[in-house]
């Protein structure tokens, strides 16, 4: 019998998210280790079939499309219903989801219904040679510890952390089949309805896409000081972010919060100004190519992870740095 691994992909209002390809990469790793295993991408959304070939190119053996206007990025409940029906009927060995809004809700609920365990926020997997040998690797205690966990139950259900798995390079020659699901989405329970959606004027580049992020923490001292960070970000073509202390103080918006409970970012440069480097903050920037820190406290934990560090008051360091950048830019 072929072992199935389901990879959850939701492409509701947007393009296929990068997280879908990351989940596929994890599923592929597990399938290849087990051998005789098939990766089936379950693709949710409205008119999503166009993404099927992309998923195959990135590692899916089969794409099961579940099309319905109801399947928006806020509709965990019907997606949960689909996965439950699929799992009961076809008994896959594993279901993998991204560790986001949808995955975070669906995963434990699905595990409960199927009488299994759920592991969330995995940064790695040790697949072993069969489903009962899998060990899921996940950070705990704000990244101060790394745990290895096994699921006891009939099915492996896990979410993978954003940026923990690198999508496989697209191979346009890969073959795979596309199947439309016959499940009646309309008949599934959907108790939670979206009654309003409010979008603010968003300023600047989304953090997830920014190559350079200039981020401020409690050490900035005041909301108005963030103009210095914005000026620098504008100069370098980057985005402004903040720590939880900055977000709680209202100096940056919730959208700009970086860390375990905010955005997980992967810029080329993450410039941390007046940020101590708490583990919960650092877990959001693990994938940054280089971390540069400006902090008055040479003992600040941020310097443990930073590649470049300046011990000093940002009030003096930053204007000189910004001016020098301006000059370097001007001079080409």
């Amino acid at each position, binding site marked *: 019998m072929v072992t199935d691994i389901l990879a959850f992909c939701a492409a509701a209002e947007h393009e296929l998210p990068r997280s879908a390809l990351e989940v596929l990469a994890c599923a592929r790793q597990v399938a290849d280790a087990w051998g005789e295993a098939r990766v089936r991408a379950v693709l949710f959304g409205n008119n999503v079939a166009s993404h099927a070939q992309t998923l195959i190119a990135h590692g899916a053996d089969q794409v099961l499309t579940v099309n319905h206007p109801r399947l928006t990025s806020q509709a965990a409940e019907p997606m949960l219903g689909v996965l439950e029906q699929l799992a009961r009927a076809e008994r896959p060995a594993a279901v993998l989801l991204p560790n986001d809004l949808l995955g975070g809700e669906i995963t434990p609920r699905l595990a409960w219904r199927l009488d299994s365990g759920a592991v969330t926020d995995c940064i790695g997997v040790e697949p072993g040679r069969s489903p009962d040998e899998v060990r899921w690797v996940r950070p705990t205690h704000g990244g*101060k*510890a790394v*745990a290895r966990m096994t699921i006891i139950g009939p099915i492996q259900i896990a979410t993978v952390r954003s940026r923990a798995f690198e999508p496989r390079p697209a191979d346009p020659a890969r073959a795979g089949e596309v199947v439309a699901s016959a499940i009646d989405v309309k008949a599934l329970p959907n108790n939670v*309805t979206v009654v309003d*959606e409010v979008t603010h004027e*968003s300023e600047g580049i989304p953090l997830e896409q920014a190559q350079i992020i200039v981020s401020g923490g409690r050490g900035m001292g005041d909301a108005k000081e963030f103009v210095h960070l914005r000026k620098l970000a504008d100069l370098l073509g980057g985005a402004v972010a903040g720590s939880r202390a900055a977000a709680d103080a209202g100096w940056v918006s919730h959208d700009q919060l970086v860390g375990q409970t905010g955005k997980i970012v992967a810029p080329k440069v993450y410039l941390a100004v007046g940020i101590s480097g708490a583990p919960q903050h650092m877990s959001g920037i693990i994938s940054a190519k280089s971390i540069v820190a400006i902090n008055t406290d040479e003992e600040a934990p941020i310097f443990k*992870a930073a590649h470049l560090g300046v011990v000093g008051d940002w009030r003096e360091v930053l204007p000189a740095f910004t001016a020098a950048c301006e000059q370097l830019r001007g001079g080409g």
Partner: protein
Amino acid sequence: MHIVVCVKQIINPDTPAHLFQLDPQTKKQIRGSQPLVISIFDEIAVEVALQFRDKDKSATVSALSLGETEAGETLHHAQGMGAGPAFLLSDPAFADLDAFGRAHVLAAALRKIGETTPVDLVLCGQQAGDVELGVTGPYLAEALGWPMVALASNIVPASEGRIRFTRPREGGYAVLEAPLPCVATITNDQSNVPRYPSILGIRKAMKTQLPVWAAADLSLDRNLLAPEAARLNLTAIETARRESHCEFIPGQSAKEKGEHLAQRMRELKLI
């Protein structure tokens, strides 16, 4: 409207990395001299419930905790913030339960609480500040058979028998509506930074009798407390090592360091 907030007591999550130690036997964090605190998102959930009650004075906010006797302090903390009734679930039989088992115990307690005052809404923090699994809220929704809303940041009144929540999302927020009773997990945004508990409130709470329920007080299938009922096994846990390779930028003054930083970043093609 009766809101029950589930609150977990944890070892200070801000324990500095160099003081963070694990017990190889129990695979749990060694407390050392660290304080025990209310898990941060649970505290936010208490705040969210209280903000609702600030607007609707007829609402009751109860707090429920599963833990050792010390977890009573966490309930007092919630009461100091303004929560009303509090309930502690404590029994050696609960000590080694995984999240699955704990959810069964919490669900049994919620049913018992509901016998006296029906529960309309259960709030849980989005994840515990120690193990960070984020499964308790969804598990409770399943155990109780109620709908759930994930990662809400505020409760908004709605028509009879229904409730609304705001949920932050990229570039804005969504408003969601669900029938009561339901479960919500709570995340943070600018509007729900927890208030400080009042010392007076904590003192008052400490003087009132805290109901402590053991397994025998709950209608609970005993098999669910057996080690075989666990759904997760922690096979290994180790502290994460972070090597330091930080290159400190030299300079006579902070100003000079700033200039040198720009030059160095240019050399490394970072800017």
